[in-house]
């Protein structure tokens, strides 16, 4: 991903060993962003080179470790409005090496195919007419000279994979491919030596070229998916504030934290690592971990988890090792077990190969025996048998799935859905049930003012004016509600904030207070915690209640899925009352509350036993094992990183409709893959009898093979259409 690190590194002073840093940069979309990111990084003293990549959304920086550190670069980018996070060294390889390995072979095969075709066309059009037989022989030898090294070099990926499959006692698509290419080349060489006309060098090399293109597309999809996933995970880890022994605060990337580090978590920040509270009391939003919407109180000694949101007061926490966290350890154990179950899934192309390879080899053998039985000499019988193998070589079949999947992935990418596992597209097409998590999936995981009609404008306006001064999530929600109802909110002046308690303004005629029930002197009856009180002077305090906001199209999406015939269920770790409310609001009657991660898995396993194929949509840490266990899975981009790792798809934005889009695209991709298999089948139905009867000439082989490959690719590209939405 770095373009010229070696060239640029020569500029540094001798002696200092420069370090290379790769950062994932969010929101880098245009040429101007690219330049400002590079310039900002270069202005950091000690940075020697900076090269950004728009395609990878990454910045590669070399710097002198004595003068600069990764934190300086991140801070410089932060000042110009870009969020950046370092990518761990083990994750930097996006599989580029393999992609280049294939691209080199595509180029060589393309070169060879072009030139051999040039020579072949001359022979086809001239031989038997005006062409000197000696020239035809010369052209065939030239073709052999180009084809042999090409097949040896460019055929490697297929030979290696086919051989590995045979060694393991399996059959995959690469076995018939390798066999056809080797036999075609070998027989053509033999025919060339005898100066006969059954020479298939052009077909063999063109075939290789198309197959390599398919393989390259497949790999490119994988590389892009992997890179995107790594960027997301790195960015989510984020930056933590570490308190040094001397009391100095430093910003450190979350992945560089060690057990024993002391962190300062400000109000409204996410906890960057698992740890124990050392100082401060407050409330923590654990919805990402447990699915519960109501804040949980913490005091010194309590355990807090990475990804939870600090709501009220800044806390000092001490980082503990991740493996000591019992919850995480259990989640990991459940996930491992769940993933093993999914490993049995066999990809469509492999399943096709399982039927295809024996059929093709059987036909080849039948041709050989048949011609022998009719008294043909064994050389003729073998020639025809080999031409059957060549003509049936699954070129279109091998392109059918990757061409469709890359088109489907780029269609989804334009609509904000990232395909993390290419075979996820196949699995999502098979589902018949969609299971949602509540918090963060059906809802946004953000508080929203409820019971708005009970609150008068006269109360809302001044309360929002006070709230505008605070970063507390409830205060922000209050401001949003006021803006929606009253337009702009004028922030009040002279406000004092007492963390964990509330805000006070003493400048007006009478004192105004906004905060907890105790802060406003209110009688907290049936208090649920998710509330803020407002009091002006000695008037009666007003209560503002908050609940988790639904995704704007949650009910629509659920209804649309139901219309399409999917069974819908809601599984949540939250308490029954709240889950029921959400279920009613979205029109889901099959809901289950208070489920632990193991409970969700057990529920999914029971459905799997009934023969259901479930798409799990979830975001929390508590959903991760269920995501891994379900037939297919999707997560919002705000999900816990372990969940994004487990999910097949990740979608962005506040809307839930990408779930429908992912299912729809998966189904269309599958039907298109079957159409492509159909094209391949029709082609075989026409050509195989001809080949078995010995009518196939090298010219026919070359034409039909290319046409079927191009047809399949064009068909797949229909799926990629459509703009961004």
């Amino acid at each position, binding site marked *: 991903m770095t373009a010229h690190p070696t060239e640029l590194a020569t500029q540094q002073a001798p002696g200092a060993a420069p370090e290379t840093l790769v950062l994932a940069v969010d929101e880098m979309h245009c040429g101007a962003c690219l330049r400002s990111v590079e310039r900002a990084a270069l202005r950091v003293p000690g940075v020697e080179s900076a090269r950004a990549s728009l395609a990878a959304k990454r910045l590669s920086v070399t710097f002198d470790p004595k003068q600069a550190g990764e934190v300086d670069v991140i801070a410089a980018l932060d000042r110009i409005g870009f969020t950046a996070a370092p990518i761990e060294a083990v994750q930097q390889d996006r599989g580029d090496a393999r992609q280049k390995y294939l691209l080199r072979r595509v180029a060589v095969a393309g*070169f060879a195919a072009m030139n051999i075709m040039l020579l072949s066309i001359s022979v086809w059009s001239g031989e038997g007419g005006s062409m000197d037989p000696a020239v035809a022989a010369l052209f065939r030898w030239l073709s052999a000279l*180009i084809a042999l090294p090409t097949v040896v070099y460019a055929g490697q990926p297929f030979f290696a994979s086919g051989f590995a499959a045979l060694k393991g006692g399996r059959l995959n698509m690469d076995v018939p491919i390798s066999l056809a290419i080797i036999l075609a080349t070998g027989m053509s060489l033999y025919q060339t030596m005898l100066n006969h006309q059954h020479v298939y060098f052009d077909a063999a090399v063109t075939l290789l070229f198309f197959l390599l293109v398919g393989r390259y597309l497949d790999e490119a999809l994988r590389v892009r998916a992997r890179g995107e996933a790594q960027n997301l995970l790195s960015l989510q880890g984020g930056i933590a504030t570490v308190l040094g022994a001397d009391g100095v605060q430093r910003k450190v990337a979350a992945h560089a934290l060690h057990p024993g580090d002391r962190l300062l978590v400000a109000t409204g920040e996410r906890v960057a690592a698992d740890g124990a509270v050392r100082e401060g009391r407050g409330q923590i939003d654990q919805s990402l971990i447990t699915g519960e919407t109501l804040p949980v109180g913490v005091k010194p000694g309590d355990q807090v988890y990475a990804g939870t949101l600090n709501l009220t007061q800044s806390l000092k926490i001490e980082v503990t090792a991740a493996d000591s966290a019992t919850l995480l350890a259990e989640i990991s154990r459940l996930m491992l077990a769940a993933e093993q179950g999914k490993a049995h899934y066999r990809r469509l192309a492999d399943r096709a190969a399982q039927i295809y390879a024996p059929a093709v080899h059987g036909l080849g053998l039948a041709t050989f025996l048949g011609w022998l039985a009719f008294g043909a000499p064994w050389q003729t019988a073998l020639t025809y048998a080999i031409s059957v193998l060549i003509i049936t070589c699954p070129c279109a079949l091998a392109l059918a799935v990757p061409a469709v999947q890359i088109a489907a992935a780029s269609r989804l990418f334009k609509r904000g859905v990232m395909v993390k596992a290419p075979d996820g597209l196949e699995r999502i097409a098979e589902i018949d049930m969609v299971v949602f998590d509540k918090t963060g999936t059906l809802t946004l995981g953000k508080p929203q003012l409820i019971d708005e009609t009970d609150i008068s404008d006269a109360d809302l306006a001044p309360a929002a004016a006070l709230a505008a001064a605070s970063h507390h999530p409830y205060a922000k929600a209050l401001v949003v509600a006021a803006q929606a109802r009253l337009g702009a909110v004028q922030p009040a002046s002279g406000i004092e904030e007492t963390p964990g308690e509330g805000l006070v303004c003493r400048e007006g005629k009478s004192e105004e207070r906004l905060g907890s029930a105790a802060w406003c002197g209110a009688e907290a009856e049936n208090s649920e915690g998710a509330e803020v009180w407002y009091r002006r002077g000695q008037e009666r305090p007003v209560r503002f209640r908050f609940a988790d906001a639904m995704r704007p199209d949650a009910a629509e999406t659920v209804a649309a899925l139901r219309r399409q015939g999917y069974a819908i269920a809601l599984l949540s770790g939250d308490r029954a009352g709240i889950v029921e409310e959400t279920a009613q609001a979205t029109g889901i009657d099959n809901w289950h509350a208070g489920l632990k991660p193991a409970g969700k898995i057990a529920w999914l396993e029971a459905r799997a036993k009934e023969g259901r194929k479930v798409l799990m949509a979830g975001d929390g840490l508590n959903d991760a094992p269920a995501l891994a266990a379900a037939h297919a899975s999707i997560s919002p981009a705000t999900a816990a990183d372990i969940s994004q790792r487990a999910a097949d798809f990740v979608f962005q934005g506040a809307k839930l409709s990408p779930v429908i889009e992912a299912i729809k695209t998966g189904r269309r991709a599958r039907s298109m893959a079957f159409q492509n298999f159909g094209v391949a089948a029709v082609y075989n139905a026409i050509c195989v009898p001809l080949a078995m009867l010995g009518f196939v000439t090298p010219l026919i082989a070359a034409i039909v093979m290319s046409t079927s490959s191009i047809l399949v690719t064009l068909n797949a590209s229909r799926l990629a259409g459509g703009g961004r939405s």
Partner: protein
Amino acid sequence: MTSLAWLIPAALALAGAGLVAFLWALRSGQFEDLEGAAYRALEDEPPDDEIT
């Protein structure tokens, strides 16, 4: 027929030059960032590694 003696080598050499050029471009990182390169072409200022 003697024309073949130079036409064929010429055809192979031309195509070979194309192949070599592509492999060079691949190796030297021309395909690393296809989107960014489109914008870099419009940049008036020289690249940073030529300023220093």
